[in-house]
């Protein structure tokens, strides 16, 4: 381990403690949960970029898929909606997948030529028509049943913790498809293609109401192992415990819930970190670095570069999917409109680059530090604006505008941090070696 690592983490810890002391412990704990989550996302991106040098900007898509998995796993089953068109919709999706597989097989089997193009085009055109014929009535029926209250299929009704696994699996499955299509592309083309895929995934979540209610959002997701504040406040045991600590019950319950999340997230991050470090030092990790640093040489040594890229792309995406499910668990709601590329793709990239790409500890530190700044720059910006506009009249429109716009300071700050790190410390705060 780099000798700088413990020092930097200690500084990070002090920053959080300072927030706890100067603002409130609740704010600090809230920050810490999101720092942990950001660190997990940064680990996922680091596996793709740091280990293998894949420049994928589809991060947001995989995080959103994790959120979808949380809904599909934990929400109660909507029997009426399912009866209205569930089986038909699923069958339509299967048929759709079958048509694509058939087209791909035809493309591979037939000799190149006009015949092949015509055959594949014909299969796709007829297939699309059949698919829509099966699919449209089913979704209309599902969305038309109980529209106000549900209007979607619901989920499996399992504890939401399972969704952290299913989120990872769903993201991995989609990553397999995307990787198959786009991993052969040159680095910056891959970035554009994955940026597009992420937008497509968000468009699906926003528009396929039968799946996850679209922009009407899903709220009230259960969070089983972690208790609810209201339940704690009603429990005599907890009240006695809070009294013994000399705290207000409401505040104590909020702190307790946040501590529960912190504890669970620390365990997840710890396990992922342990696995990532093991992978990094293993022969597999050495092979990945060899491929990253010199693809041609690695290929000459008999390494299957394409398969390894696909593998590492899937692994990284799975971690992102898991983080997405965890985020929805924490928030208790799924809002497709909330997924913004700046926040869920490029901010995570800033974390990895600032922390140190290719170094797991670096990515974790980057996740902590950048999230901390992302949240804390806003009050700082407000403070600066207050100072700058102090000489202006209270009702000056310029002053009102500047104070209102202070929130956008954080974007500028993130950009400047990224540019400075790229220029003066391109290997990040904790470099790879």
């Amino acid at each position, binding site marked *: 381990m780099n000798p700088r690592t413990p020092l930097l983490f200690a500084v990070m810890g002090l920053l959080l403690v300072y927030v706890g002391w100067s603002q409130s412990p609740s704010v600090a704990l809230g920050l810490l949960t999101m720092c942990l989550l950001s660190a997990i996302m940064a680990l996922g991106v680091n596996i793709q970029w740091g280990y293998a040098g894949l420049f994928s900007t589809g991060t947001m898509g995989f995080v959103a898929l994790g959120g979808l998995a949380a809904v599909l796993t934990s929400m109660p089953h909507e029997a009426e909606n399912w009866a209205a068109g569930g089986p038909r919709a699923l069958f339509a999706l299967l048929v759709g997948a079958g048509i694509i597989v058939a087209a791909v097989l035809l493309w591979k089997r037939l000799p190149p030529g006009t015949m092949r193009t015509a055959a594949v085009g014909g299969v796709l055109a007829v297939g699309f028509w059949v698919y829509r014929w099966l699919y449209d009535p089913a979704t209309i029926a599902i969305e038309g049943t109980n529209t106000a209250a549900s209007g979607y299929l619901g989920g499996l009704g399992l504890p939401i913790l399972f969704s952290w696994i299913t989120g990872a699996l769903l993201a991995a499955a989609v990553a397999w498809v995307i990787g198959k299509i786009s991993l052969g592309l040159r680095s*910056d083309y891959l*970035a*554009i293609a994955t940026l597009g895929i992420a*937008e497509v995934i968000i*468009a699906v979540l926003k528009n396929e109401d039968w799946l996850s209610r679209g922009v009407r959002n899903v709220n009230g997701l259960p969070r089983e192992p972690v208790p609810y504040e209201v339940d704690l406040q009603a429990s005599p045991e907890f009240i006695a415990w809070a009294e013994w600590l000399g705290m207000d019950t409401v505040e104590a319950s909020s702190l307790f819930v946040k501590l529960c999340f912190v504890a669970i997230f620390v365990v997840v991050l710890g396990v992922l970190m342990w696995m990532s470090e093991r992978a990094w030092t293993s022969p597999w990790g050495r092979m990945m670095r060899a491929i990253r640093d010199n693809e041609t040489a690695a290929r000459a040594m008999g390494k299957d570069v394409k398969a390894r890229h696909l593998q590492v792309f899937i692994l990284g995406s799975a971690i992102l999917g898991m983080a997405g499910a965890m985020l929805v668990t924490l928030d208790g709601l799924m809002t497709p409109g909330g997924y913004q590329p*700046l926040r869920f793709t490029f901010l995570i990239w800033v974390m990895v680059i600032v922390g140190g790409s290719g170094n797991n500890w670096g990515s974790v530190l980057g996740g902590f530090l950048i999230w901390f700044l992302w949240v804390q720059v806003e009050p700082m910006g407000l403070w600066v604006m207050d100072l700058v506009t102090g000489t202006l009249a209270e009702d000056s429109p310029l002053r009102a505008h500047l104070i209102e716009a202070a929130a956008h300071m954080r974007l*500028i700050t993130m*950009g400047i941090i*990224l540019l400075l790190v*790229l220029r003066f410390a391109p290997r990040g705060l904790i470099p790879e070696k």
Partner: protein
Amino acid sequence: MDILNAFVLLLNFVVVPAVSYGSQLALGALGITLIYGILRFSHFAHGDIMAFSTMSVILATWAMQGAGLSLGPLPTALLAIPLGIAVTAALLLGADRSVYRFYRKVKAKPIIVVMASLGVMFVVNGLVRFIIGPDDQDFADGARFLFTVREFRDFTGLDEGLGLRTTQVITVVVTVLVVWALFWFLNRTRTGKSMRAFSDNEDLALLSGINPERVVTVTWIIVAALITICGVLYGLDKSFKPFTYFQLLLPMFAAAILGGMGSPVGAVAGAYVIAFSEVAVTYAYRKVLEYLLPADWAPEGLVQLLGTDYKFAVSFVLLVIVLLIRPTGIFKGQTL
């Protein structure tokens, strides 16, 4: 008569919007392709720089409107474009001096420069939101229509009408002029030729005494002009919203890659392919078919291939198909 009606319907809802959208994309994609050809990296900040340049034009337009300046039936924003170009050129040259030049000197890998452009993207995005805010802004004035759907119907006696907005006409006219000027510049002038030489073979160009910094400066200024005009035309035709401009990055890149990165002709062709596919795939053909088919064959649904929200999927699919089948794009890319 029915065939004519169907034709007018398609003209009004597919062809005219696609031509004006394609023209806007073409200007954006030309900028991307020029930067790629000369500076050899994918400029991810393109959408946000476009938002910035449009913002400066909007602010200037408001000031002009306040001062009572107007172009009559034409939007006042056209008057403010030169100012917008100047501001954007200053911004781009500033970004080049403070950020990109360093990576050129150390001959960094293109992907590192792309990351630096992400940093610029963040800063410019923040600046735009800081100055004008994240909301929709309206800055169009002048006459809205050259002729409206109703006027067309009354004139021709058809059931369906064709409306032509002033902004659509301006878009096409301006794009034709700009593209013509750009190609004339690249092919006929000394500076343009040196740019093409530089893009084709950097070492050979250096050897023949071309000043690389001058080529780069001229490129950024041209990009500033293209991007400002593109942003203003899009904003006049649709509306200005910083996030929408950021999202335009995808179709613009798709157009540039589709046509062949580094090929200006390709960028223009790619832009129209993307625009036509996007509009054609997301248009609901029900009414058209009602005119063309016998009455009892009329379709029940909207006959829409994809919902309008899936328009990004169109860019993406076209992009992937081209990259898999013909990775160099329609026109062989890499040089101007």
